[in-house]
């Protein structure tokens, strides 16, 4: 790909510019990979050097430190306490004590069970006196996986704290040497609402994110490498175990077992997901913009009324309107019955029965739902386009189309580019519309039974739902598909993000 100068680039037409950008993106991939590898190497080297320095530093602290510094290697916080920094020292000590107590009371068990995910499932014993089977629960794979991961997090936190504790001793020595006064507990507390205020503010959200976002994601990813399912639920029945990459093999295997292979089914669903996301995003975008422009046009009366009418569809909760519309288009629904009673058709139109009809119908209904939102978003932006641009173009003799393609659209794309991207990825995971309208129907009769009862309008996300709640409750497959959805979405976002005008030509409209 030839590197163009700014002047050459600006001479190109709009489409050629886009092509150029796409081309240079793909051309830059090999280079990018090499660069990535090099920086990865640098990163590793840097980390190694950092680690070496760290270790040297730790040893130096030990060698040069006084008795309290040496003792804090074992009992954290001794150094601080010995030098009168009671608060810091006690906090270190408390953390160590909590850690030790946790490890003894449970941590060691969770950690030791993590490689096997449990050794003994529940047992039943007949109690002749009460004439009943009594259950005794033993290992629980689910909890082992969850708390095992939590324990690892805890250990990492301990190592980090221990390192901070060592560094404290070095710091104390330095400050003492320079003759300054050490910070007291009072100073520490005061700084938390002063120069360290950001830490105070972020402590709670950070803990929350760690516990409620990072930990579950970590856990869910790990599930993809186990056989966690309805029949191996890890507790009341069989324990579940690690299966390595078996589940990914299943997903990508072309071997047909009892119907279509898993890979073929996955491919079909993925293809439809992409087609759906494309149409759902762009039909809404352009039609919504069109409606907004129509209403904005000078000479249109009752502007507020038209907008209100359209916004009414937003006022009704989406799931109610979707369920209702789904019934309307049924074989014996309002629409078919009406057309038939008028004598226009002799048999019902297969809105939900035929795969192609069903796919087109969901896209059309989605337009009906989506236009009002887009109209609202674009109305504001359209009003924001400087009117002098239009006036001067009119003087230059531009017609409406030229104005649209040269002024309106570039401006809109510039402002709403990031919105388009998020709406595309949002549509890839648009569970509501598909699930409530068709539930994935009509069923793909060729798909194997292991793939659940996947249908022609199922997106990856609704398929995932079916697999989790279906006859076999294959949580592991759902996790694998979840990871695949992430990979696809991440890839598309990355490519598109690089090509967005709002990122590429940041100054265009400033």
């Amino acid at each position, binding site marked *: 790909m030839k590197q163009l100068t700014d002047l050459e680039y600006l001479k190109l037409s709009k489409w050629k510019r886009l092509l150029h950008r796409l081309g240079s993106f793909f051309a830059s991939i090999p280079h990018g990979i090499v660069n990535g590898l090099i920086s990865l190497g640098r990163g590793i080297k840097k980390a190694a050097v950092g680690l070496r320095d760290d270790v040297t530093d730790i040893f130096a602290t030990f060698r040069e430190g006084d008795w309290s510094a040496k003792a804090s290697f074992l009992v954290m916080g001794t150094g601080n306490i010995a030098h009168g920094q009671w608060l810091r020292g006690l906090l270190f000590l408390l953390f160590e004590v909590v850690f030790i107590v946790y490890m003894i009371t449970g941590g060691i068990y969770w950690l030791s069970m993590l490689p096997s995910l449990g050794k003994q499932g529940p047992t039943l014993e007949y109690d002749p006196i009460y004439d009943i089977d009594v259950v005794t629960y033993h290992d629980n794979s689910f909890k082992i996986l969850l708390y095992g991961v939590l324990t690892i997090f805890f250990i990492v936190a301990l190592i980090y704290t221990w390192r901070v504790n060592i560094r404290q001793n070095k710091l104390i020595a330095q400050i003492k040497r320079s003759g300054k006064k050490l910070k007291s507990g009072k100073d520490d507390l005061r700084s938390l609402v002063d120069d360290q205020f950001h830490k105070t503010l972020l402590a709670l959200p950070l803990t929350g994110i760690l516990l409620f976002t990072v930990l579950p994601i970590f856990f869910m990813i790990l599930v993809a490498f186990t056989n966690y399912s309805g029949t191996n639920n890890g*507790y009341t029945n069989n324990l579940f175990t690690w299966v390595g990459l078996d589940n990914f093999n299943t997903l990508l295997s072309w071997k047909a077992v009892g119907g279509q292979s898993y890979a073929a089914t996955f491919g079909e669903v993925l293809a439809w997901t992409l087609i759906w996301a494309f149409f759902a995003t762009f039909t809404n975008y352009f039609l919504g913009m069109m409606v907004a422009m129509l209403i904005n046009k000078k000479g249109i009366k009752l502007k507020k009324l038209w907008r209100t009418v359209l916004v009414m569809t937003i006022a009704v909760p989406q799931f109610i309107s979707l369920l209702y519309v789904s019934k309307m288009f049924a074989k014996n629904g309002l629409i078919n019955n009406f057309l038939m009673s008028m004598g226009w058709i002799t048999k019902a139109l297969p809105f939900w029965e035929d795969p192609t009809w069903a796919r087109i119908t969901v896209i059309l209904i989605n337009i009906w739902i989506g236009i009002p939102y887009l109209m609202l978003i674009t109305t504001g932006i359209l009003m924001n386009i400087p009117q002098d641009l239009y006036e001067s173009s009119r003087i230059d003799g531009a017609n409406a189309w030229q104005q649209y393609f040269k002024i309106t659209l570039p401006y809109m794309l510039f402002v709403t580019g990031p919105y388009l991207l998020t709406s595309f990825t949002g549509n890839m995971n648009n569970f509501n519309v598909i699930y409530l309208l068709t539930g994935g129907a009509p069923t793909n009769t060729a798909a194997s039974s292991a793939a659940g009862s996947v249908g022609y309008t199922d997106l990856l996300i609704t398929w995932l739902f079916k697999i989790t709640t279906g006859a076999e409750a294959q949580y592991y497959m759902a996790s694998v598909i979840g990871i695949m959805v992430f990979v696809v979405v991440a890839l598309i976002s990355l490519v598109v993000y690089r090509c967005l005008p709002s990122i590429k030509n940041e100054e265009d409209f400033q």
Partner: protein
Amino acid sequence: MKKLLSVLLTLAMVLTMTAGAFAASLEGTYQITIWVAEEVKDLTAKQIEDFNATNEYGITIVANIEAVSEADAATSMITDVEAGADIFCFAQDQFARLVQAGALSSLGKQAAEIVRTSNDAGVVAAATSGDTLYAYPLTSDNGYFLYYDKSVIPDEDVDSLEAIIADCEKAQKYFAFEMGTSAWYNASFFFATGCVSEWKTDDDGTFISVHDTFNSPAGLIAVKGMKKLVDSPFHLSSSDGASFASNAAAVVTGIWAYTTIEGILGDNMGVTDLPSFEVDGVSYHLGSYNGCKLMGVKPQTDPIKGAAIHRLAQYLTGEKCQMERFEARAWGPSNLAAQASPAVQANPGLVALYTQNAYSVPQGQIHGSWWDIAKVISDDVKNATDDAGLQQALDNYYDKISSLFNLDTSALLFVGAWNGWNNADESDTYYFKDGSLTLDVPASDYMGGRIVNPGSWDTDKGFAQVTVGADLIKDLGADNPDNNIVFIEAGNYTVTIDGDAISIVKN
């Protein structure tokens, strides 16, 4: 000797006393959670009060009654057994899943005996896995029959599927019979021609074998009948009783839709058993599933509480409570005495159901995936253009059934006394991998077996094909309609298949 006897006697006395003391200690108050359908929530509260007032053990139940539909209960239980209800109700198709997930505690020996003798055989089978009873029968009315609009379909037409379809097409109204979305309904055609799909579970609820004859000449007749229905532009795949309000003239559904449909059609409502269809001049009466709802008790860690809850579940599914539910909500009882009561016998919906029951198949235990596999047959049938296409639909079905057991269909399997007649055997021991097989025949009353395709029960080769070693097996003549091979004595044999001939050599 005397001393020993006295020691034994004292010991026996002590044991009886402690046992007696334990039995009395069921007395107490127990906090439990119960999931029942919304419509019987209040009734259940009243029934629990009755139980508290009348039970002989001094049990007081403080129940937190929550409305959870029978369809959702199983999924909620499996998701988290520990947090699930102590007593919950579910449709029988969820039974095996629940046993597998360890969400059901088995009935005690005495309770099991009472349940077995007082309920109809179909529901007892539905609550049994292996030899163990895991749940209390709640109803025996989960079947379907025909509701029709008398103003559209004349009474003389309701016995013929073709006539009903013709009437509906003429009136431009729909015939609702759920096909592509439910195997429970579309299996009706297969049962009409005598096909079966029987599954076997062991004591843990794991499926061990299947006997399925959908892919057979009879199955082909069934799909021909099905094609007549699904090809009609006025066939509607639905079992919603409310369809009568949106242009349907006939709906195949169950007793639960009775009040809804009565409200829509009023005096025009007709109720009867399912019609017959005709293929090649022979008439086949549509079959149906005959299922039930069950009440289960979650395994308890405290035996005393467990025993108390079991007593309650037993009471709630007894004759009195079943009759109360029938009177309040028209739930068809499973209790034999309740079924025989005049009030039940006079309900037109239940009469239609009981008439249809003559053609019905007890639902038994069915693999969860079967519902997904079998429901798509009717879509394939609809898309088929000729008999080859119909056969393709059945082949597609058969492939998927076979894959459930990871069956290796490349070799024949010798099922029999030696492997517990398991036609889905996953061990390599009984397959004719290279045309021959070494077999250990254990001593038993019937030392026989048959050579089949894995997953099927139809004898592929048998007694008639034995050319070498005929002296080692019994010639049972007319007593051997299945062409079984029955060894005369136990021992180790080598069986070889060469083309169509079988040779047997004793080692």
